[in-house]
Every structure is written in C-alpha cells, then in structure tokens.
C-alpha cells in the first residue's frame, strides 16, 4: 500500500468516524431527502421529475462545501499541515485526496438517494445511466474542488463559512434543485448561470433524464463543469499554503478567477 492509498484510506474513514463529517456526508442529506420527499411532491408534482438529481446535488453540496473547507482551515490553524509537510506529505496529496474521498462518499450517498427516491416516492429515474454517472462525477468533482479552494484561500472558519454559504444557499434556491429552472423569473436566470449547481442540473436533465443524447445545449454545462474543475485544481495547487500567513491581495484576485468558467457561460448564453 503506497502513501497515497494509505492517506486516502485514512481520509475516507475520517468521513465516517468524524461525527460532524458523518452528519454532513450522510445524515443531513438523507434526513432532508426524507423530509422534503414527504411533502414536496404534494405541493409540486413536477418535483418528482427533478427529485433524484436535486437530492444528489444537495448531498454533494452538503458533503463538500459544508465540510472540506473547515477541515483544511482547522488543520492549517492547528499546525497539522506543517506536521504533514515535515514528514514529506506533498501539497498535491492534500489537494487531491479530500476531493477523491468526498467523491466516494457522495457516490455512496447518491446511490442511497437514487434508490430511496424511486422506491419511497416513485421519483423519475434516469434514462441514461452512463450520462447520469458522468454528470454525477463532474458535479461532485466541481463542488469538491471548489470546497478545497475555499479551504485554501479562506483565512478563518468564519470567512470560509461566508464564501461556502455564498455558493450553497443560492444554489439551493436558484440552481433548479427544488424548483425547475424554467419556473425562475427571467431576471434571475443569469444569476443562476453563475452557480455550478445550475449547470449540473442542466447536464442531468439534458443528458441523464432525456432521450436526446449529447446536444449542443447539453454539451455547454458539461464543458463549464469540466473547465471549472480544471481551473479549481490549478488554483488549489498554485495557492496551497501550509501555514496561517495570509494570502496576498494578488493571490486572492487570482483565486477569484474560479468563477471565470461560469461568467463565460453567462456571456455565451
């Protein structure tokens, strides 16, 4: 077992051992799913069309944005990252391993949510499982890389919370998770396009729950999510820091380029 596998194995186990991580990875999204599934279809029967991707994205956002940044910030503040550094742990491992571990946790949670949605609430299930899996992977990677980037850039848990919530809350309201995008007021559509959740929902709906296959309209969200993952990963590796010394203003501006793929998509649409 090499160092990467040993590290990944530990990181994955932490997601279950640590009560707060366990809560955000599994209990919170599954509890929310059970609650929302009990009344939402009665209010809006169309919700069953988007229940599977909506609940999966909710789980992905909770298991990434609400956990990963705080683990990184806490480890940095407690000197754990420095301890890792003098023992030869590379920055690349500290960037990639939380992402891989989060994707694995989210995959488990997504299986539970997909099976639960169809069996408990008779939600619409994907028509194309290949695209369903691919879009899930892209969405999970996109949010996980965003979460790691927030952990690297944020100076404290407080500022990390603000940035994470600035993505999390609007994504739930405008991302098409609860209400189909078509029902949003036109003025909010551009704002919604700045959110990764919106693109993930478009990709799910256009590819995994549609018989049309890969159209130009469906390819755009895939491209945006892919570009976002690559930009985020690059930023994480460039901006990674081992200690609490604040990032320079220039580096903060560089970090802000993470929104570029979404801003470009707004311009294109």
């Amino acid at each position, binding site marked *: 077992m090499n*160092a990467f596998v*040993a*590290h990944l194995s530990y990181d994955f186990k932490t997601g279950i051992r*640590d009560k707060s991580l366990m809560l955000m990875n599994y209990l919170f999204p599954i509890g929310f799913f059970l609650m929302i599934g009990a009344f939402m279809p009665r209010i809006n029967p169309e919700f069953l069309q988007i229940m599977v991707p909506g609940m999966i994205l909710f789980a992905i956002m909770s298991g990434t944005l609400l956990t990963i940044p705080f683990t990184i910030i806490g480890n940095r503040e407690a*000197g754990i990252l*420095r*301890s890792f*550094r*003098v023992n030869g742990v590379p920055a690349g491992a500290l960037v990639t391993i939380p992402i891989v571990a989060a994707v694995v946790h989210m995959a488990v949670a997504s299986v539970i949510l997909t099976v639960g949605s169809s069996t408990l609430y008779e939600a619409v299930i994907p028509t194309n499982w290949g695209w369903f899996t691919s879009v899930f992977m892209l969405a999970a990677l996109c949010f996980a890389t965003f979460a790691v980037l927030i952990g690297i850039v944020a100076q404290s848990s407080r500022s990390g919370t603000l940035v994470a919530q600035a993505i999390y809350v609007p994504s739930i309201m405008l991302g098409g998770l609860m209400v189909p995008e078509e029902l949003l007021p036109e003025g909010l559509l551009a704002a919604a396009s700045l959110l990764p959740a919106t693109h993930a929902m478009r990709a799910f709906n256009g590819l995994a729950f549609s018989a049309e296959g890969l159209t130009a309209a469906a390819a755009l969200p895939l491209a945006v999510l892919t570009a976002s993952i690559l930009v985020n990963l690059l930023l994480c590796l460039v901006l990674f820091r081992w200690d609490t010394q604040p990032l320079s203003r220039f580096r903060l501006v560089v970090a802000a380029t993470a929104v570029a793929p979404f801003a470009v998509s707004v311009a294109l649409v």
Partner: protein
Amino acid sequence: MNGQVRKATGECSSHALEVSDLRKTYGDTVAVDGLSFTVPRGTIFGLLGPNGAGKTTALECIEGLRQPDGGTISVMGIDPVSHPRRLWNAIGVQLQTSGLPETMTPREAVRFFSRYHGKQPSYGVIDRFGLSAKADTQYGALSVGQKRRLALALAVAHEPRLLFLDEPTAGLDVESRMELHAMMQELRQAGDTIVLATHDMAEAEKLCDLIAIIIAGKLAVVGTPAQITAAGDRRSRITVSSSAGALFGGRAGSRQAVPAGAQAETHSDAERAAGAHGAGVQAGESEPGGADLPDAVLTAVRDGYLHYHSENPARTVAALLRILEEENDELLDLRVERPSLEERFIEITRRNGK
C-alpha cells in the same frame, strides 16, 4: 534559495548540523541575524533564548520550512532549500505547534508517516514510547502527555539520526516530563543527535551536552552548561541554618536565635540589594542579621536560614563551621550551590538588553 545563500557542502562531517551566517528577515524585522553554530553528532544540543529571539525561525529554516535570506545550512550534509524532501526523510521533527487530525489513531499515524517517508511502518515505536494500550485510540482522546510521546514516536519512526524537538515537554506534568527526558537520553545513547529548543533551563542543564543562547537573532553564547554557568557570576550561593542561631545577629557569636519558619525583617531589603547581580550588603556593615564571613556577602535572612554569596566558598564554609564549633551550635542545614543556568541565562539576556 536566493543568490546570497551558498550551497551546503560535505556529506560526511563530524557535525550533524552546520549553520553559518544564517539570516532571515520579515519586512523590516530581522528575525535571524548572522547565526552560526555546529552540532556534533551524538549530542543533545540545546537552543535557548527569550521569546522572539529567533529560535523558531532559525529552526524552521534548518528544517526546510522557511527559505533563509542568506547563509549556509548543512543538515547531515543536505541543503534544506535545494533538497527538502531528502532532508525530511533524514530528520525527525517535532514542531512547537503541530498536531494530528483528531480522528487519527497512533497506529494509523505511524503507517501514514512511514509511507510518506518511503518506509515500512515500524509499529514497535508505539510500544517503545509506552502507547501500546492507546495504539487504536483516536488522537483527540489522548492525554497531553500521550500526545507528546506520540509526537516523539512519530519523529523517530522512520529512524532519522537527527531530531529537532521544539519545546517537547511544555505543559507536561513532572512525571511525563521525566519520562520524555529518559526517552531523549535513550536516543542519545543510541547515537542519535537531538536539537532541543526549550524554555526550561533545568531541562537544558540536565539533558544538553551543548547549549546555544540566541538573543535578538544572534548567538549570544555557546558551550556546555558548565562552561556557560562558569562564565558568568562566579560567586557560589551558601545557605546555612543552625539550631541555636549562632550565625545570626550581625557578628559571630551574638546568639540571636531565629527559630525555623520565622522571617527576619531585613531579608527583603538585603535580597533587593543583592539582586541578580549580587550587589549585596556586607554582613556586619548594615547589621542585616548575619555573621560576618570572609569573602561572603549576606543576601538574605529568611525562614531561619542565612543566604550568602561567596567568592571563595571553601574559606567561607570553613569560617562558618568554625563559628558553630566555637559557639557549640549544631549545624542543621548547609548548602553550597553554583549559579544555575537559569541565573546565567537571565544575566546574559539582561546584558543584551532583553
């Protein structure tokens, strides 16, 4: 490393660590200012200094965590700046502010770090450092002493020959401290070299073969604990108590008995007068309440004890024993002590304006 920093040379040296003209600044603040010292292999080398003296910065440069602005560092023949990964496999480090994730167990930590050092996990260190019963307990549930022992175990798990320990016993109870001291001595006996940064002077005096005192980023003094203490105030402290108090009263034989536990009114003044530099009040000159002894300065009278500073302790002790003999008094307690490292440290830091 920038152009000013020369590359370290020499793989095989009798020194585990060689630091020459090390410099590090943060903006306008000079943290380390031309620091030079060497650490012989197989020794415990103490790095002392007041807060903000530059110890931690110097150590971080040596450990490859910070880039120096100038100077040469050779750690087991390795340049920390150009070969940090090679360095981290060759040394063991216990940082002042470091920890492990709360959910990591000692067994996992040994596996985790050993893999990154490219070694097979050596779980024997868990037993060796008395943690076998806690091998599968999460880090967050370990006591402070157990955490410190684990930190030391992890620092040696990949079998480095040079260890850097930054205040390893801070915040520990006496028993845990003694345990860690024994472990460090064991490592030295096995031929390992330890660089120990500490604020605990007694610890440094007890463990270190060599000590360097850093003040304002510069090396103030380096030597063995005995050499450092001997280089300062040469007077010995003599503390004496007798049953009938023959030595009290300002001159020999006055027999003003002071019962044990009582405090003479004059002691605080005398102590203040003596101060750290031992200005002292000559016994008999201002009647502080003690016998006039040759080559000695009375510094305090407290709790039935007379405290002297003596330039010639043999002559002073002989004289006081003679007085007791002549006065038919019984000696209850007599202590002759050289100045401690702590006193010498205070003397050096005051002299350097800290």
